[in-house]
């Protein structure tokens, strides 16, 4: 070949190599779809396309099924269970609900009840059981009545597929743990299908394992206050990153803002906190913990974190001050300098 033909061919080859090295490295398969009431993105690295696609397809199907078992108000398995619960007595519950309940019980206990999946009635009263949350906020009497009735997972007994409820105020709402379960399911299925490296991102909350080729997965943490990236995080091993924020689901009524993270003790949206971010090795616990630690008082949350087995916590209060446990401080690479940080040790 002459100079002209050799040159472009070699340049093409070299540039392709360079392009693959810079932009892709290992084979990365990425798909996104809507499920579990949010936007899901799955990325796999190092697996052949066909295998990755098949695995993601399986995940997608599973999440659609999970959605039905966990969605608090859309017609589906959970809605049916909630109808049966209102009537109390014994009935047959579906596997999805039973699984979610089994996952939630220890989380309820370890969080001293700050995470309570039996408070569907309260969430509904506040107007959060609809696509577009709206007021008006419930009457104080309504809230008091629910708190009096003290619905909790402890009111339910399960025997095989039979569930018995003693408290008509119990309505199951797994919103605080659904995405966590979703990413746990997804990761389990991906692994089963031979995917050794992946990220599952469900509306911003994610779980990642393995690596991206010869470097770790890198996660950017968006600044809840607005534009830009607050911090970078390098994934180590298999871990989930979950955040509960007061900006996720809320409405305004008469000039006041009401968000969806209700304090089970007061029956009202928790105050004083903007967001809580948790890193843990699996999603359901991280999800529930982010909720529980949001609701907890300022002097209480380190103990709750310890009880739930969480080490890395970032709690942003409503003045924008970042409270971090040492484990979290070690992990986050802060990208903004106009932030005040405080290290809070766990007991």
């Amino acid at each position: 070949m002459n100079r002209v033909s050799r040159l472009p061919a070699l340049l093409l080859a070299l540039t392709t190599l360079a392009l693959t090295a810079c932009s892709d490295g290992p084979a990365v398969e990425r798909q996104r779809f809507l499920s579990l009431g949010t936007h899901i993105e799955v990325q796999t690295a190092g697996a052949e396309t066909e295998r990755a696609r098949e695995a993601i397809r399986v995940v997608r199907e599973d999440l659609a099924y999970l959605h039905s078992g966990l969605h608090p108000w859309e017609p589906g398995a959970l809605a049916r269970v909630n109808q049966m619960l209102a009537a109390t007595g014994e009935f047959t519950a579906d596997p999805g609900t039973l699984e979610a309940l089994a996952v939630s019980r220890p989380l309820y206990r370890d969080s001293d009840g700050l995470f309570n999946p039996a408070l569907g009635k309260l969430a509904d009263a506040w107007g959060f059981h609809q696509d577009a949350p709206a007021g008006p906020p419930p009457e104080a009497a309504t809230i008091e009545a629910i708190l009096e009735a003290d619905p909790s997972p402890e009111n339910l007994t399960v025997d095989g597929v039979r569930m018995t409820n003693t408290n008509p105020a119990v309505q199951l709402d797994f919103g605080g743990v659904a995405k966590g379960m979703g990413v746990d399911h997804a990761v389990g299925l991906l692994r089963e299908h031979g995917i050794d490296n992946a990220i599952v991102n469900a509306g911003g909350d994610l779980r990642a394992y393995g690596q991206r080729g010869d470097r770790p997965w890198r996660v950017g943490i968006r600044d809840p206050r607005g534009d830009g990236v607050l911090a970078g995080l390098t994934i180590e091993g298999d871990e989930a990153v979950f955040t509960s924020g007061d900006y996720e689901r809320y409405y305004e009524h008469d000039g006041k803002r009401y968000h969806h993270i209700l304090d089970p003790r007061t029956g009202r949206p928790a105050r004083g906190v903007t967001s809580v971010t948790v890193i843990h090795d699996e999603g359901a616990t991280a999800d529930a913990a982010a909720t529980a630690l949001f609701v907890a008082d300022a002097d209480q949350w380190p103990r709750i974190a310890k009880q739930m087995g969480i080490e890395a916590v970032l709690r942003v209060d409503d003045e924008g001050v970042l409270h971090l446990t040492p484990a979290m401080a070690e992990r986050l690479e802060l990208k903004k300098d106009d932030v005040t940080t405080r290290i809070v040790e766990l007991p």
Partner: protein
Amino acid sequence: MSEGLFEGRNGSRAPRPGDWTILLVAGALVTALWLGGPAGQGSRAEVRVEDTVVARLDLRQPGTYTIDGRLGPSVLEVADGAVRFVDSACSSHRCVASGAHRHAGEVAACLPNRVTVAVRGGRGGYDTLHY
């Protein structure tokens, strides 16, 4: 014989006017390519309705786009290297409230309308964004 075809057309020692023309035109073409060349690695916003990609917006080009979703139109605006929802057929308008998105990995969505906007490309350092 084939030689006859070229008799008289090619006896000179120096390049001829046609050659110079070609050289000049080639030079001009190549220069034009360098200057106004193909789009490089800028950020793009991939817009989907359900699973179907309906648009890939270059975030360097300001503009307004109307996307037809399940409930009706969602209006996107690209300005200043970022994309945002300015209006949508949903009732809560959380998509609009989520503001501007410019970093690779960010996703803005109007879930009721099934419209999602994912920012791709650029030399972002992150594989995914947590929010």
